[in-house]
């Protein structure tokens, strides 16, 4: 890695300002996981298909494996670690726990971020809107039924 190509890039992650000296094309995913040690964001495919690396960037849902760090300059990024303070759970996390939305758990952080984004846009989604809203996030364990149950429950305010 040649030193001359490194740049200082600043962004806000989970409310904290971060300045990172990195290659501009470094993946946001790697910056989050390897430099900021926010390993809740997972890599499943590395090509934007599975959604395991989903985070919110300026309010939009993005696959962090497809975002070069340069593009995140000045951005507000929220990861799974930023949803609830400390050991607390937000309503979606609680609902995933109560309704069986997490099995192996590897897609769960990305799925919760996608659900969070969906509920931000549509606080009362229909079942079809939930399915559509989560269709960019693959889960191999659940068949999605209990994930959709969890999102619906969180939207109703039924979780724990």
């Amino acid at each position: 890695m040649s030193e001359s190509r490194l740049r200082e890039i600043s962004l806000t992650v989970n409310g904290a300002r971060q300045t990172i000296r990195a290659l501009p094309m470094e993946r946001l995913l790697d910056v989050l996981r390897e430099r900021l040690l926010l390993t809740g964001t997972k890599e499943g495919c590395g090509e934007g298909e599975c959604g395991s690396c989903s985070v919110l960037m300026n309010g939009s849902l993005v696959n962090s494996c497809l975002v070069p760090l340069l593009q995140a300059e000045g951005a507000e990024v929220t990861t799974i670690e930023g949803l609830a303070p400390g050991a607390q759970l937000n309503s979606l996390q609680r609902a995933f726990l109560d309704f069986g939305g997490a099995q192996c758990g590897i897609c769960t952080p990305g799925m919760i971020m996608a659900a969070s984004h969906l509920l931000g846009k549509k606080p009362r989604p229909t079942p079809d809107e939930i399915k559509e809203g989560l269709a960019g996030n693959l889960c191999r364990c659940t068949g999605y039924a209990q994930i959709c149950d969890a999102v619906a429950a969180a939207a109703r305010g039924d979780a724990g």
Partner: protein
Amino acid sequence: MTTERIIGVSVPRKEGRDKVTGQAQYIDDLSFPGMLHGVTVRSTIPRGKIRNITFGPGIEWNEFVIVSAKDIPGKNCVTLIVDDQPCLVDGVVNHPEEPILLLAHPNRHALHQAVAAVAMEYDPLPAIFTIDESERKTQIVWGADNTFKTFLVEKGNVDSVWEQADHIVEAEYTTGAQEQLYIENNGMIASFDATSGITVWGSLQCPYYVHKALMKLCNLPENKVRVVQTETGGAFGGKEEYPSMIACHAALLAIKSGKPVKIMYDRMEDMTATTKRHPSRTRHRTAVSSDGRILGGEIEFVVDGGAYATLSSVVLSRGTIHAGGAYYWPNIRIRAKAVATNAPPHGAFRGFGAPQSLFALERHMDRIAEVVGLSPVEIRRRNFLKTGQTTSTEQIIHEPIDMDQLLGRGLELADYRAKKEQFQKANKTGRRKKGIGIATFLHGAGFTGSGERYLASQVRVEGLADGRVRVLVSSTEFGQGTKTVLCQIAAEELNLPYDLVEIAQPDTDQVPNSGPTVASRTVMVVGKLVQSAAFGLRQTLLAAGLTEEYSAKEFLAACSRYVAQHGELKSWARYEPPPGIFWDDEKYRGEAYAAYAWAVYIAEVTVDLATYGVTVDDFVALQEVGKVLHPLLARGQITGGVAQGIGFALYEKVVWQQGRMANGQMTNYIMPTSADLPAIRVYFEELGNEHGAFGAKGIGELPMDGPAPAIVNAIADALGAPFDSIPLLPEDIFLKLTGQLRPEGSLVPEGVR
């Protein structure tokens, strides 16, 4: 023990909070000081001899640790059943993506270029890629005759039935390879030092399989090898055997470098190099009476095992035993065979051979119905196995299963009769054809035949200094809920709140060998042992003065006091075969499984004749699985399995080019998304099971068996044409219909042909 308080209740998942907060630590989330990153250099040809390896220019090779077969301290094999699979190629390549060299470097970004700079020169050998080619033996690529294993099951006298038959129904069915596609790719970290030996952390199902493989490869004694399972992001059988290979690779790099080494596969490496479901071919020839009773049949079941033996013999075994399904065969002959090809070895995937042979059988039942002139419902009713009758291995069914009643309930739940009638009318016009199909089947839980006896699994339940209880097993959690349910079982048996029972992370230095986490055996077999060990622990405390009607507080005090006085409180249980179990490994006859789960699955589909796309509109999954210990987890197993079954039927096609998967990406190997799936309606019946913890049976694999045949039966119903191969993609339906229908055929709209 009074009433059950925890069993049957959906208590919170033990590791659930860590999973929903992103705190759960998977292998790629771990990093050790000074750790190197390892990578595998693989073959690019299906078969041949390596003539020369050159390390090309432009790479600082002195910065790399390089391992080849000659660096292996022990035996160059990945130990499993037959020691035929090398850990690293030593001269001869037998499949694409076969590991040849290992490289490690402190910077993982340096690996890709280095792999590309290694040039292999080969003397290619002719290769074979299909069951047919393997059977023709134009090339012998394994053993004397390309055959890993054969089985012959014979019951009655099949040769006598053909003359009495009113109908003889013959057909051939095939199923394709299927990728497990767990969302967490395979990964391992190994570290080595001369005093403690080798330690491996990783994503895996079977810690003691990896342990055994490392001992042989590294030539180390039992106590110098330690395997620790990290949180595992899905497995489905795909992390049963291949993790041993990756652990061996990481260990070799760690030994040579003296540093911890992480090997983390990317998606394409995981898809192209590791195991998949065995492709299969099943031929049925069945003698049937005019009133639709099966008089007897011959079944030939063949699976493609790929280049090495791995688990093919046991996959074949389960597929063979399930080939006769949930029906009574007075006479049957099943010939089964696992053959070699030059593809990466196929391996374990949920269902383990049964989804393949049951797809064939359940399609065949619909074909028989058509020939005889009965409905798919009636043909099944007339042939269901009943209590007291025998399976094809002559196992007497003792449980009071009533498949007729189960089917009746399933039909009601699906509103089958009304829909069937409605679809038949509606399908006369329009381009969207609707159909409804059923599959009725069974799935045996636990290891086959004498398997559990050979495993002789052990578990331990121990009291802790603070009075709480810990369960120690090698059974792993990878989404199914192992940790939760085993703690529930111990808590129930000990009459303690669930929160006072914890479970150890599988670590071969800590936990006894309770066998591999496979074969739907964890809750039924290991759970029963946990129940037994918990009972023993309770008896010890009662003998030490704890009163019979203890409160949790009294238990904690007694347990804590016992540990303080004696230093420890440990209770063990070891598997003992139930009395009266008989299995003949030679003749493949006897009690194949301690218990079967039974199911009726009904699928409703629409086929759009403009696109030939199929949508599954409704899916009823009704099953008898003994006692449901945790309703939420049980339902999650069924919906997840059905989703994989829908993928197996309609979406998931492995495209092979010269033995290599050509579509090894999530972009071009398509699994169902949330938008692709119907409401999967799950229903249970609970007959109980004396062999399982609190009456449980195995449940994990069952839901993989039924969806594909139910869906393909529904498509056949919608289109009035038979389909005998999966995956069944729109182009396959198009070809079948346009190839088969006369030009005036009404199914295909004008302009499409």
